[in-house]
């Protein structure tokens, strides 16, 4: 066998083995990426091997050019047939890849749009939550102020009740004075009667009783003055009885007011506690909204990256399709 035939045989054997291996891989991997890589690499390696081999043998092959050309023609012819078959089989795959990339890009755009809408909604919710937080804080402050006011009013009401108790005690003393005035009134009545009797006796004494009669008249006048003053005091005491009734009414009203204020204070405490819980809950909601917003931003960024990646994939698919169609 001459040197000319060895590479021809080896190249042909390589091509045959490569073709057999290609068919095996083609069926094994269902036209997958390994097959594609193998099919691109192997022929290149084969060609490189053949070309390298023949480069070394170039000089020796000068005289064998016709045979070499024939071998190369046969080899390239086989390669052309193989590539043609491959590209034809890849054409639908490329179209599917393009469609998938388009669909991914569309989905990424929709995802990005949804993320943007979500971010907008979250921003609105965050604003609303901030307003609610402010309102809750105002309500809490108002409840605190109401508690303070109610507490002060309750304290004043208690002081008012104490003052009314003192006034009531004074009025009780006035009532005791009224009893004393009754005694004074009785004494003045008796003095009056005594003076009348003294006047009678003085009148009976005639001229000798004139001086005594004057004294008796004076006593009687004093008794009448005492009685009048006692009546004035009694009238004043009667007015004080009206005042006592008014004070009793006021005491009841102030006690009722104190009870209402006490209840108001309890309600204000409840409002304050509820508002504090509400503020804490709103704060948690705000934090959750911030997390959701951050997630939305990440999602939008990821969607953007996905969209860019799918666009790149789409371009790649277009280029591959161009290559295939161009072949």
């Amino acid at each position: 066998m001459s040197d000319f035939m060895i590479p021809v045989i080896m190249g042909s054997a390589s091509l045959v083995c490569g073709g057999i291996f290609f068919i095996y891989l083609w069926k094994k991997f269902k036209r997958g990426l390994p097959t594609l890589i193998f099919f691109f690499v192997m022929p290149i390696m084969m060609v490189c091997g053949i070309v390298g081999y023949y480069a070394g043998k170039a000089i020796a092959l000068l005289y064998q050019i016709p045979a070499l050309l024939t071998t190369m023609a046969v080899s390239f012819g086989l390669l052309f047939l193989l590539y043609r078959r491959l590209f034809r089989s890849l054409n639908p795959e490329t179209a599917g890849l393009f469609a998938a990339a388009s669909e991914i890009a569309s989905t990424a755009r929709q995802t990005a749009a949804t993320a943007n809408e979500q971010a907008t909604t979250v921003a609105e919710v965050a604003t609303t939550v901030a307003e609610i937080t402010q309102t809750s804080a105002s309500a809490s402050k108002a409840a605190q102020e109401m508690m303070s006011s109610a507490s002060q009013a309750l304290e004043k009401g208690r002081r008012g009740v104490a003052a009314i108790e003192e006034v009531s005690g004074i009025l009780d003393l006035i009532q005791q004075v009224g009893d004393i005035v009754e005694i004074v009134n009785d004494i003045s009545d008796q003095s009056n009667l005594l003076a009348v009797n003294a006047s009678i006796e003085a009148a009976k004494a005639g001229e000798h009783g004139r001086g005594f009669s004057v004294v008796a008249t004076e006593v009687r006048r004093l008794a009448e003055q005492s009685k009048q003053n006692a009546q004035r005091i009694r009238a004043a005491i009667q007015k004080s009885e009206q005042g006592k009734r008014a004070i009793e009414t006021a005491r009841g009203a102030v006690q009722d007011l104190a009870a209402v204020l006490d209840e108001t204070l309890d309600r204000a405490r409840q409002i304050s506690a509820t508002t504090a819980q509400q503020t804490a809950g709103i704060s948690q909601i705000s934090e959750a909204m911030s997390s959701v917003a951050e997630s939305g931003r990440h999602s939008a960024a990821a969607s953007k990256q996905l969209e860019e990646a799918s666009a790149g994939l789409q371009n790649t698919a277009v280029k591959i399709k161009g290559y295939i169609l161009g072949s």
Partner: protein
Amino acid sequence: MNEDRMRRNEEDVLDRRARELAETAKGAEEGGAFATITVVAVGAVQLGLPVESLKEIVPRTAVTPLPGLPPWISGIAQIRGVVIAVVHLGRWLGLAGLDAGPFFAVIAGPAGPLALEIDAVSGLRSVKAGEIAADLGTLEVKVPGLVRAATKDLVMILDPQVLLASEDVLMDSGTAIGRKR
């Protein structure tokens, strides 16, 4: 301050006494005094009881009713240890419907003391002759001579002796106790 005020009051009282004493002496010198009476009230009626017949005026005490007596005899009461008859002056004078008075005017007479129920005591009054009304009108309808005179301001001056001598308040022993008409 209070001492000055008390001294001024004391001086006022003494001055007033001196003036009243002088007025009394002047009236006695001028004459014309009709009677010295104690003005009492029975209901709305002002009555004058001459001081000569009036023993005293005392607060009302418990009255024990006696059976079979006329309505103007309230009963008997104990005054300073003495049991005396009590006459409701208003009822006896025909002023029906009057309640028991808070005072007794005790009058003295030959038949013994008698307590008259009265409502109020106005005080002593020295009635001048010029104050007496000329005509008594219809005041004499019930007991002749009981109303001795009437002043122009409608104070009826009674004669207690006529009351004590009335058969309405006399019993057989001469003690004022009353009997039915």
